[in-house]
């Protein structure tokens, strides 16, 4: 029965139908083959997979990100990052990475981060004499911080399917995200020194003060979201609600960037992005039910035991598999497929569920910049106008940096578990 289940899944995937439907269709094929189960199970589980309070964080963070972007806040964030780092070697590149990190703390998506920061910084770096592909590759990799630094849509998906605290998962991404940003900055500094990229002009005091002042409302948002979760004031869903209210007030009243006439379009875009993730989550529920009934995780575990049962070894094997899965699949669908299979393994192997979550999400996010296909690669190509081939040639070094950080969080669980355990005493 398990073989038929897997074959049905592969066939539906190869047919190129929406992955959400492939997940639901596989469960449906299983129920039809079994014969003695009612098909209403499909509807009940799908509904249950979509109707839960933690999932409300998804539309809220999608909406907060869309509102902040609409408000034109990115321009002020980027200006602030340039003022801070412009006089350092490779300062524009460093500012891009810093701006990505700050934007990542507002938005939970890599593509949103790449588009928001890239559309301002890529033309600026080109004008300053940076090689286009170097600038594009650094921006693409830095955008990966989007879903790693909290808030994060992938962590919400993982947390809901694996039944792990979303707040704790958010906090588990802080050190890996900051680590990725820092190492990328060192890389950019090194490239800039070797290639003698020009420094920016020294800004006047007035410019520094005005630029910093204008960025304050945007910089406060991550503090409120992450600080609120760390302090136990809000659940992630509530933090999403606060983020929406804050983005609306700051973007609409302080920045005056959100026009009422544009609001339906902003709401619709955020709604369609939400629905894309939610349909996946809904239809992954009957799929997860079959995975559990057929004891797929246990069977995978016995297969893994042949190689060895050391947690780090298993994590390395999982990583290798996920890198491959991440090449053709985007993060959300890949998570909907692998989480029901992988999450039960954590307990049995003594892997901390937070570490497993961080490793899985980090892996799949790296898939967004792995040639030949990746949503971030495509959007950066779109913004910069360079070909996918040129970007693919330049991405390998920053990608290896990402891989090195992934290995670090695989070998050292404390990098992902320390921060959440400091703030969530129950863990």
């Amino acid at each position: 029965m398990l073989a038929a289940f897997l074959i049905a899944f592969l066939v539906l995937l190869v047919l190129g139908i929406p992955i959400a439907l492939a997940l639901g269709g596989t469960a449906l094929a299983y129920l039809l083959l079994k014969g003695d189960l009612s098909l209403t199970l499909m509807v009940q589980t799908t509904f249950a997979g979509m109707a839960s309070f933690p999932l409300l964080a998804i539309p809220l963070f999608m909406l907060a990100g869309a509102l902040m972007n609409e408000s034109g806040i990115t321009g002020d964030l980027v200006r602030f990052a340039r003022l801070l780092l412009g006089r350092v070697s490779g300062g524009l590149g460093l500012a891009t990475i810093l701006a990505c990190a700050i934007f990542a703390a507002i938005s939970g998506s890599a593509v949103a981060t790449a588009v928001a920061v890239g559309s301002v910084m890529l033309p600026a770096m080109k004008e300053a004499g940076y090689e286009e592909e170097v600038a594009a590759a650094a921006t693409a990799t830095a955008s990966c911080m989007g879903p790693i630094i909290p808030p994060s849509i992938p962590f919400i998906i993982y947390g809901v399917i694996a039944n792990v605290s979303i707040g704790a998962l958010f906090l588990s991404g802080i050190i890996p995200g900051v680590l990725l940003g820092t190492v990328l900055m060192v890389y950019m500094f090194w490239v800039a020194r070797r290639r003698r990229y020009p420094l920016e002009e020294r800004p006047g005091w007035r410019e520094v003060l005005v630029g910093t002042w204008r960025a304050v409302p945007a910089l406060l948002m991550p503090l409120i979201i992450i600080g609120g979760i760390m302090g136990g004031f809000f659940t992630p869903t509530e933090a999403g609600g606060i983020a929406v209210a804050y983005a609306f007030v700051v973007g609409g009243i302080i920045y005056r960037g959100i026009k009422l006439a544009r609001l339906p379009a902003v709401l619709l875009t955020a709604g369609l992005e939400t629905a894309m993730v939610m349909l996946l989550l809904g239809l992954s529920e009957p799929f997860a039910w079959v995975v559990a009934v057929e004891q797929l995780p246990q069977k995978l575990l016995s297969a893994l035991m042949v190689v060895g049962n050391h947690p780090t070894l298993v994590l390395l094997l999982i990583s290798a598999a996920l890198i491959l899965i991440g090449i053709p699949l985007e993060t959300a669908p890949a998570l909907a497929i692998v989480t029901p299979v992988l999450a039960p393994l954590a307990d049995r192997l003594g892997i901390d569920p937070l570490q497993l979550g961080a490793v899985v999400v980090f892996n799949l996010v790296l898939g967004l910049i792995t040639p030949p296909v990746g949503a971030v690669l495509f959007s950066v190509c779109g913004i910069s106008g360079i070909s996918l081939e040129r970007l693919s040639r330049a991405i390998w070094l920053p990608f290896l940096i990402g891989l090195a950080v992934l290995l670090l969080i695989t070998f050292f669980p404390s990098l992902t578990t320390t921060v959440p355990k400091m703030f969530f005493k129950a863990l």
Partner: protein
Amino acid sequence: MVPAALAFLKKINGTLLRLAGWGVILGMAAVGVIIPYEVAGRHFLGAMPPWSGELAIFILAWISMLGAAVGLPRGYQIGMTFFLDLLPAAPRRFVRFLGFAASLFILGVLVVYGFDQVLVNVRQVSPAMKISMALPYLAVPVGALLMWLVTLEQTLALLLGGEDL
């Protein structure tokens, strides 16, 4: 006959998806107001409205299903086209047709059994708002029906060869 049916279907789908789009917009606006209101109630007013969480969850189910349908023709529901793209044009069209047929079947089951669940739950009331559970459940068959209609339109377009999908 088929071109006329396709034109008619396009028109109907256009209207239905526009309505569904407004449903998504209103739903997102409602969720964006309800949750901050709930947080304000809990932290500043000292009382949490009993209905807010439940209402937001039910709206989320509707946003999900209606939004999935509106996003379908816009390419939001990602499929793995990696292998499909490797095929020459003629077999690719055939495989796409098989994919559409599979989608129509899966969505059809969600429509039929979804309405069945709605009927079963008519008398069931929700814990907080005491409204019929048929209302939130209705999101599943309605959204699936819209997606079924969009997929049917895509299938007819493929058969007529007008669109190389």
